[in-house]
């Protein structure tokens, strides 16, 4: 059964996507890498920033092979700059 995930964009990634968030339907067993692939097709300028893109699912950083579940919230953002 396909799953639906929400994707949130932070900082200047929002300027590239022109939206703070989007939704995406993926096949069962889809991973973070699958979301990135989808997002990069839709927003080529985000693809250019792929090397410095950080990915979290919920409130934890996750690697590309992390398997997603229905209702997951995937956050994409550039390097953090607190302080």
């Amino acid at each position, binding site marked *: 059964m396909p799953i639906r995930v929400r994707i*949130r964009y*932070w*900082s*200047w990634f929002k300027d590239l996507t022109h939206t703070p968030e989007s939704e995406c339907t993926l096949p069962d067993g889809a991973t973070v890498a699958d979301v990135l692939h989808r997002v990069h097709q839709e927003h080529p300028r985000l693809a250019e920033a792929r090397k410095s893109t*950080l990915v*979290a699912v*919920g*409130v*934890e*950083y996750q690697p590309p092979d992390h398997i997603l579940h229905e209702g997951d919230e995937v*956050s994409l*953002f*550039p390097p*953090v*700059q*607190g*302080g």
Partner: protein
Amino acid sequence: MHRHLELTAAPIPLGDLAASRVESSTSGAVITFLGVVRGSEAGQPIAALDYEAFEPMARHQFEKLFQTMETRWPSLESTRLVHRYGIVPAGQPSLWVEVTAPHRGDAFAACQWLIDEMKRVVPIWKRTVPTP
């Protein structure tokens, strides 16, 4: 270890924070770090920095850092951190950190580690607000 974490849009209340320090008969060293917004960025004058925080994740990541500190420096007695978000005018602090321990070596090391790690993993970003 006593922990206090605050993400706030209001100016950092330095006086209140100093007054509310938990005193203990064993804390010999108190390190405080204040990160202040500078008046220029890359050589250009700026009016302010505008900080954006992914707040639930920022809180979670800070708590994980605090937990690592407890393991790595068991002697630490207290860590308090306040990060401001939204517009922070030049000259005002955006970050306040206080680390308390029996001895200064641990307090200095832990405080520096916390700030370094924060700048690596805590989802907060800034944009410059140019002078008018």
